[in-house]
């Protein structure tokens, strides 16, 4: 049971480049989430999705784009990477929204130079 996977695990890119982080879950969970984790800020929600083709902004969506054409995949794209987007990115999924736990992927450590 693979659960939830992210790729790549580590990425170094240059300012201005487009980067896509992949997230895949095998549970058929309806909800999927993207967070970034930074020292001093904890976990902040970037975008989330309630189902295929339904996405919504989180707390810090600027500079990011998401799509969800299939239930199992939820890619996150940085259209033009900036140094402030250097962070660890976590994808998560959940069966439901209200009062339910989320299951997290292993994370992608992104460095923008």
């Amino acid at each position, binding site marked *: 049971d693979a659960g939830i996977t992210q790729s790549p695990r580590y990425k170094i890119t240059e300012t201005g480049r487009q980067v896509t982080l992949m997230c895949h879950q095998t549970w058929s969970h309806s909800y999927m989430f993207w967070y970034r984790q930074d020292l001093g800020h*904890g976990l902040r929600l970037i975008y989330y999705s309630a189902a295929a083709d339904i996405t919504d902004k989180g707390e810090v969506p600027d500079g990011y784009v998401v799509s969800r054409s299939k239930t199992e995949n939820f890619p996150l794209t940085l259209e033009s990477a900036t140094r402030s987007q250097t962070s660890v990115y*976590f994808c998560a999924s959940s069966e439901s*929204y*209200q009062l339910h*736990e989320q299951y*997290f992927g292993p994370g992608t450590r992104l460095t923008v130079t």
Partner: protein
Amino acid sequence: AQSVTQLDSHVSVSEGTPVLLRCNYSSSYSPSLFWYVQHPNKGLQLLLKYTSAATLVKGINGFEAEFKKSETSFHLTKPSAHMSDAAEYFCVVSRSYGGSQGNLIFGKGTKLSVKP
């Protein structure tokens, strides 16, 4: 509004001694509460959850937490610490609604160190 406060940013214990990580919450309704653990360079793993069934919740790796409504607390305990327990622990409360901050409110984390 809901909120969660982890009372200690860092806890240090010796191997074999008890662990206590403290968490207080604020909620206007009966919440769901979770503890997650994050080992270095890893994702967050669900340790245990409370969803209004038994107030004493048992989780993985010998951890347990007790929901105390009168004290609005959900402290995490383990009778005997192991070196592998060294990690960061997050107390999390679920909102009754969503919005731009999502449906989970994360505490700031408690870093647990275990000395040999």
